[in-house]
């Protein structure tokens, strides 16, 4: 059992202060924007929940939200299983393991806009390897004009960039399983699937929770990569929530609605993350004391 000791707050205080410094004031400012109509630098009118009502009725927003949801689900459905599979197939030790780890981690270290640039170049039929290969196969691939191709490119780009995160976390989780478990499974004559289902997967639940939450949050707020690739196009095809929000805030300078929408967006991510967090924690260690609901 953990010791109850409120002095532990002193150990947490630096973290709380440093995060609060950047978190509290911007959040309050955004809340402030969301209930006002800002006409000029010194002219503001309190409008209450008017902006919230307006954005929730906005059909373009519904479209962007739907696209966002599909995108995140597809990306998670590919990256999590693929990441686990790769982690299971990687060599466990030796120079091959080191080399694989370094190679796998490379895409993670590419800045967001460079990821967009790499794939923008790679997919072009005239100067890109990928686009050229597809063209020589007789496929008329063009992410700039064909919505389906744009979608495939954006998903492939995300899978390329972020599956390594899932794989690395799972790989490290697998290395932490004591050899005794495998020996016991062998004595019982367990098949590979049973070993995976009853030993590896439960032991991975902790790192999978981190991977799942990180990937959910980041893919749900994806902005730079599709923006660099096609600017949210062709048409509105890859205008995900963050891109739409930026168009609203910067393009049309509708700060009020954009702020109201940011708060709704923020809340959705928090609620989903909280549900995922609580559900996974409860299903994986049912013996643990129940979490308080904030």
């Amino acid at each position, binding site marked *: 059992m953990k010791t109850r000791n409120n002095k532990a707050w002193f150990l947490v205080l630096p973290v709380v202060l440093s995060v609060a410094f950047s978190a509290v004031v911007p959040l309050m*400012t955004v809340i402030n924007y969301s209930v006002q109509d800002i006409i000029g630098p010194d002219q503001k009118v309190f409008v209450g929940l008017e902006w919230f009502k307006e954005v929730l009725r906005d059909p373009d927003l519904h479209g962007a939200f739907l696209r966002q949801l599909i995108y995140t689900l597809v990306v998670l459905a590919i990256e999590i299983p693929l990441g686990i599979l790769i982690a299971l197939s990687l060599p466990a030790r030796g120079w091959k393991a080191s080399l694989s780890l370094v190679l796998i981690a490379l895409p993670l*270290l590419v800045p967001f806009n460079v990821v967009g640039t790499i794939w923008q170049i790679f997919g072009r039929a005239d*100067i890109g390897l990928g686009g050229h290969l597809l063209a020589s196969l007789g496929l008329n691939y063009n992410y700039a004009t064909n919505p389906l191709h744009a979608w495939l490119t954006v998903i492939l780009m995300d899978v390329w960039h972020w599956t390594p995160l899932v794989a690395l976390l799972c790989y*490290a989780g697998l290395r932490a399983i004591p050899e005794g478990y495998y020996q016991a499974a062998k004595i019982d004559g367990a098949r590979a699937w049973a070993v995976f289902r009853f030993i590896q997967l439960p032991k991975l639940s902790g790192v999978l929770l981190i991977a799942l939450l990180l990937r959910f949050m980041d893919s749900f707020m994806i902005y730079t990569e599709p923006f660099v690739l096609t600017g949210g196009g062709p048409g509105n095809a890859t205008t995900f929530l963050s891109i739409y929000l930026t168009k609203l805030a910067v393009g049309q300078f509708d700060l009020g609605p954009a702020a109201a929408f940011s708060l709704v967006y923020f809340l959705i991510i928090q609620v989903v993350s909280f549900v995922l967090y609580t559900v996974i924690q409860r299903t994986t260690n049912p013996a643990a004391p129940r979490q308080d609901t904030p």
Partner: protein
Amino acid sequence: MKAALPRATALKTPHLRPRMRPGSVLLPVYFILLMLPIYWMITMSLKTNEEILAGFSLWPRAVTFEHYREIFTNPAWYSGYLNSLTYVALNTVISLVIALPAAYAFSRYSFQGDKHLFFWLLTNRMAPPAVFLLPFFQLYQTVGLFDTHIGVALAHLLFNVPLAVWILEGFMSGVPREIDETAYIDGYSFGRFFFRVFIPLVRSGIGVTAFFCFMFSWIELLLARTLTSVDAKPIAAVMTRTVSASGMDWGLLAAAGVLTIVPGALVIWFVRNYIAKGFALGRV
């Protein structure tokens, strides 16, 4: 998946981990797909712009280091790298220094509001950037941290510290509590115990956390670009500006892209053993 673990091979392998047969096909294919875009960028960075635009070639016909020379001799370019490296290093160090005691507190003690606090920390990763950027800019300008390395480093704490606490807490929970108690009985003070005994025990956790802090701070662009103009401008922002100003200088862009991967590759090389050595101690 069904075909995996044929008995004969499983008995022959010295360690008893089940061998996944699909891996023998999956891994090479995956690595090829992984490396192709990177290979292409490296190739492009070594070609002249004429060759890039003239037509398709799988490797450079005449290797040129012109693009790299441009980056290493033009202060507008290389200062971008120095700026990014400076604030990323600052951020990684600060994140670790403040996250270590906090993670210890979360792993060892229960205290008023601990669960709420933990989740609140995590929620700071979840703010959609577009609208939050404006108040960020105003805040950092008001307190005089605009366009400073420490300013960007502080702003990046917002998403790195919660993650650092989360990962470190996992590692620390894997260290038996008896070790703490024994140390206290032996007369160690908290500080001496923490630095002499505890930190060495969670070394691999610190390595992994450092990698993640470095990575997320290095690839972040929106905040870094918003909070800087000249003196602390990150390389990623330099790349977008220069490209739009001089048309499309593909070779230079590719060279700059290659150089953004190099520092991270060095970091991962140093922490690879920590990652291999059982990341998830407390989480499994």
